[in-house]
């Protein structure tokens, strides 16, 4: 069973690496941000699998933190990085 968990975690990690292509290519800033969001969810899944595989229930707390904070970065992006660009776009 432990091997299965690890294999699954590895599979998710590889998924994440493949998804990195979208961060590198874009094209828009929102696409990159979106991919970061997917990375967050994937990390939650990997952590839950590792919690089971390594028999460390404390790892679920880390997954809990990721789940709680998943939105903060994206909110910063929507509220700070994008509106700023938009406002000054209008001034030009």
């Amino acid at each position: 069973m432990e091997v299965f968990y690890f294999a699954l975690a590895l599979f998710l990690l590889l998924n994440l690496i493949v998804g990195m292509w979208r961060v590198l290519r874009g094209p828009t800033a929102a696409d990159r941000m979106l991919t970061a969001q997917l990375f967050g969810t994937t990390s939650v899944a990997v952590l839950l699998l590792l919690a089971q595989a390594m028999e460390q229930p404390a790892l679920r707390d880390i997954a809990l933190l990721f789940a709680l904070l998943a939105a903060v970065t994206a909110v910063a992006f929507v509220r700070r990085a994008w509106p700023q660009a938009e406002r000054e776009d209008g001034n030009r």
Partner: protein
Amino acid sequence: MAIGELLSILLLLAGAVFFFAGTLGLLRFPDIYTRLHALTKADNVGLGLMVAGLALQADSMAAVGKLTVIWLLVLLAGASVAHLIAAAARQRGIVPWKR
């Protein structure tokens, strides 16, 4: 026990499939809105199936509860972020893709 384990493996595998589909969609779909759609599938269904599979193996009800809370939180974050990004993208004038 054996049936529970088998079911858990099936659920976890199904979850992995959804994560894979989400990544594939993220890479292959033509614009930001369709990619958002793909992403939320991995968020909601993929993680949901994984949580269900792991909950079958969990040793206490508290662990099951924590897993469920994590899933609900990811649902909340995923839905809100998808909405915020899509709204911001529309406001910025990114036109939805049409065939």
